[in-house]
């Protein structure tokens, strides 16, 4: 029973750590293969930056708030890089508050650094109607004369008996939806279409029968139509006609483009932005902006020439708020452009209307972002690793692990024979269990990140994992030399070795705990994995090995003492004296 549990555990751990083993069973493979070890920046490439938050000018009571707004401001800047899982957090180091930014897969470190600690550009821009794409009326008229001539020519062709209306529509119609359908316009009810089209379609002229083309060109506001009646149903006001048409569009004045141009008014002129609730009765917050002297002058000029027109606000070239509500601010958002209601002469402006409290707060936060809520200066710590180097480190260290594991396995089997074989199996189970823990842990709040030093800790733990077995096996051999029978020697070996194993591992756990507690980065990565490894190895080396030995090693084995140890009469380990 216990033995089958061990087999089951080994299988589960094996499949989790090496999913390719079940590649032929897609449902299991696909589930298991989604589990991935979370690699640290030193193995996947990326960078880790630390900045000291300068809180000297922040009131003590507002520090927590200032730090959290610093964190969200940096998060927004970092999100622009589009890397997966950027990490921004504040940590305490002594009395300092340290802002940590971790990004994987960013190519240009210097550019990224500039974006993180630099000041984003807050700009107030005015509208400019771009008329450069306008076409003079004369030219338009000429173009339309030609278009109409083309339409008339098409009508002639369509009226020729036996002509292919569908083909004509396909080749010439400018109605993109209908042209490939033989110009099919669908079923049109009487009185439901544009008056010119309606008059032509429902023309009572008996010559205009089902299947015939209307003999005249129909001109509507948007263009010229050659229509064909396919079928008629109903009569009187309920009459419906299934029609087809060829459309030649009229040329028209293109809509003018709206550009936003610089006004010279930027974030450096903005002294303060805040949410105001002065007009409580309306329960709608307003956002007030306070500009400096230069800004006040600029604002006066801008507002004077733009009354009734918008003043758009951009941050780093993008609209300042998420206008389309998709959660991100990007090129798809419409410009945020409050309309200037009056001339603003005192350096103050107020944005009101259609603002919820949350929106107003967001807007204020973004307006104030032009300068970070807490200055951070240059990084005080930087670690960056190029992705290719990370990959190379991963490969070499895993190779070291494989070589180390293999030699330990060989050593154990040669020295402890059958016992060593069982310990080796347990060591392989241990390795699989550890890999499974690394893979599963990111799903829990205690995610383990695998760094280079963590690999070193893991490899070291492989060497330590068999220590308990060495202790137990030496004890078993000793008991056998005292002429104990095999099964009871095994029991005794486990029992007697336990205090030493426990005491020995406690000390390693103790120092690992100190390292986790005091250490950072490299040291923490190493110590956490070493500690998990020591605990897990106690389980595999004691529980699993014991179950496997008790299941397989019965009295039968006493006939083959060479399975356990070299047979010799001498009771002593070393005959030397």
């Amino acid at each position, binding site marked *: 029973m216990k033995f089958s549990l061990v087999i089951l555990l080994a299988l589960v751990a094996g499949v989790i750590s090496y999913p390719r083993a079940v590649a032929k069973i897609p449902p299991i493979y696909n589930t298991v293969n989604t589990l991935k070890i979370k690699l640290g920046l030193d193995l996947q490439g990326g960078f880790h930056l630390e900045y*000291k938050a300068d809180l000297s000018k922040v009131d003590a009571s507002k520090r927590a708030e200032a730090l959290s707004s610093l964190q969200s401001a940096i998060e927004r800047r970092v999100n622009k890089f589009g890397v997966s899982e950027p990490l921004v957090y504040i940590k305490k*180091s002594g009395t300092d508050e340290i802002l940590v930014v971790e990004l994987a897969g960013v190519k240009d470190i*210097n550019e990224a*650094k500039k974006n993180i600690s630099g000041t984003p550009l807050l700009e107030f821009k005015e509208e400019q109607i771009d008329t450069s794409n306008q076409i003079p009326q004369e030219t338009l008229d000429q173009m339309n004369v030609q278009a109409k001539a083309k339409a008339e020519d098409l009508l002639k062709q369509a009226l020729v008996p036996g002509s292919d209306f569908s083909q004509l529509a396909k080749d010439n119609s400018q109605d993109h939806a209908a042209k490939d359908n033989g110009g099919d316009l669908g079923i049109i009810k009487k009185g439901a279409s544009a008056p010119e089209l309606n008059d032509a379609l429902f023309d009572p002229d008996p010559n205009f029968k089902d299947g015939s083309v209307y003999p005249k060109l129909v001109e509507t506001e948007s263009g010229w139509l050659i229509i064909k009646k396919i079928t008629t149903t109903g009569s009187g006001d309920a009459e419906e006609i299934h029609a087809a048409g060829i459309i030649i569009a009229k040329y028209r004045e293109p809509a003018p483009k709206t550009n936003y141009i610089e006004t010279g008014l930027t974030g450096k002129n903005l002294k303060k932005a805040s949410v105001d609730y002065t007009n409580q009765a309306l329960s709608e917050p307003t956002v007030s902006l306070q500009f400096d002297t230069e800004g006040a002058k600029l604002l006066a000029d801008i507002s004077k020439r733009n009354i009734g027109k918008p003043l758009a606000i951009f941050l780093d070239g993008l609209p300042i708020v998420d206008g389309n509500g998709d959660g991100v601010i990007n090129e798809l958002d419409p410009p945020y452009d409050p309309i200037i209601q009056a001339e603003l002469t005192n350096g103050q402006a107020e944005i009101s209307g259609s603002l919820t409290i949350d929106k107003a707060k967001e807007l204020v936060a973004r307006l104030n972002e032009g300068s970070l809520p807490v200055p951070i200066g*240059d*990084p*005080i*710590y*930087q*670690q*960056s*690793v*190029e992705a*290719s*180097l990370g990959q*190379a*480190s991963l490969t*070499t*260290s895993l*190779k*070291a692990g494989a*070589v*180390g594991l293999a*030699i*330990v396995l060989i*050593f154990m089997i040669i020295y402890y024979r059958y016992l060593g074989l069982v310990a080796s199996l347990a060591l392989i189970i241990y390795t699989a269990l550890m890999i499974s823990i690394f893979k599963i842990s990111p799903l829990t709040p205690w995610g383990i990140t695998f760094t*280079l*030093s963590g690999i070193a800790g893991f*490899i*070291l733990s*492989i*060497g*330590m994992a*068999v*220590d308990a077995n*060495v202790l137990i096996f*030496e004890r078993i051999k*000793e008991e056998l030399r005292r002429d104990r029978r095999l099964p009871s020697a095994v029991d005794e070996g486990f029992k007697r070795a336990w*205090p*030493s194993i426990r*005491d020995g591992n406690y*000390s*390693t756990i*103790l*120092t*690992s705990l*100190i*390292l986790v507690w*005091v*250490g*950072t*980065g*490299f*040291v923490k990565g*190493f*110590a956490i994995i070493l500690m998990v490894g020591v605990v897990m190895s106690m389980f595999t080396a004691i529980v699993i090995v014991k179950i496997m030995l008790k299941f397989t090693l019965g009295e039968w084995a006493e006939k083959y003492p060479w399975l356990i140890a070299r047979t010799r009469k001498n009771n002593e*380990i*070393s005959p*030397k*004296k």
Partner: protein
Amino acid sequence: MMQIINKRKYFYIVSGTLVIASLVVLSMWGLKFGIDFTGGTEMQVKFSQNIPDNTVISEKLKELNLDSLVVRKTSDGTVNIDYRNSNDQINTEVFGKIQEMDKDAIQLSTDFIGSTVSGQLKSSAIKSLILAILGIALYVAWAFRKVSRPVKSWKYGLGAILALSHDILITVGIFVLLGKFWGVEVGVPFIAALLTILGYSVNDTIVVYDRTRENLLRAGVKEDFEDIVNRSLNETLARSINTSLTVIIVLFALVLFGGESIRYFSVALLFGVTFGTYSSIYVASALLVTIYKHQIRAKS
């Protein structure tokens, strides 16, 4: 049975010499501290074509007035550029110079540590060492709390701590030499290695002491303390060697194949564990006997 205890004089001489030599080189030359403790930058650069000569690179960087600049080629065909300036701007400028030499050069890795961080790393390293030594001492005393005859429990603790200090000091001594003659620097990983050595080496000592404790409880009145200790040592010899051997095997694999960045971390562990095994066999138990003898002499 091997007679280890009665040859303790020789082991004391060997260990004493090594410890004193370590202390001497440590006070003469000191450890070569890396940027973790001094602040500064370690940049690893990969050139796209021919790697310029170290002196050419140094010459090029000269005008930036870098503090204790060292340019060194690695075995992987990259160049390490180390300097001790404590501001981040300089890193951008240094790489700018490199790009002037080879515009496709890649900044493979950069570790920059400002002076505030290095100060904190230093104090936390010292803190962790003190904590670990205290913790281990208390732990050993606790583990042997039930033993009082003929040697008091805290004396086991003393023996263990002396043996551990021996392991740590010799490892430090070796790194003083590595730093002096091969430019090997010690940083936070070295401290982590020392702590790991503390935690691991005490295992061996504890196992031997454990056996002594067990044999003391069972021993008749006639058996001499010295003989009991020697017998305990012999009984645990195979396991002491084998447990360390498996760890030494994986550490060797790490040193040989583990790559540049964790090489000296593994080297430190390797020396520490090796000397730890040596001391728990040849020194720690001998110390118990010496303490015991001293005790008897003091009484009479």
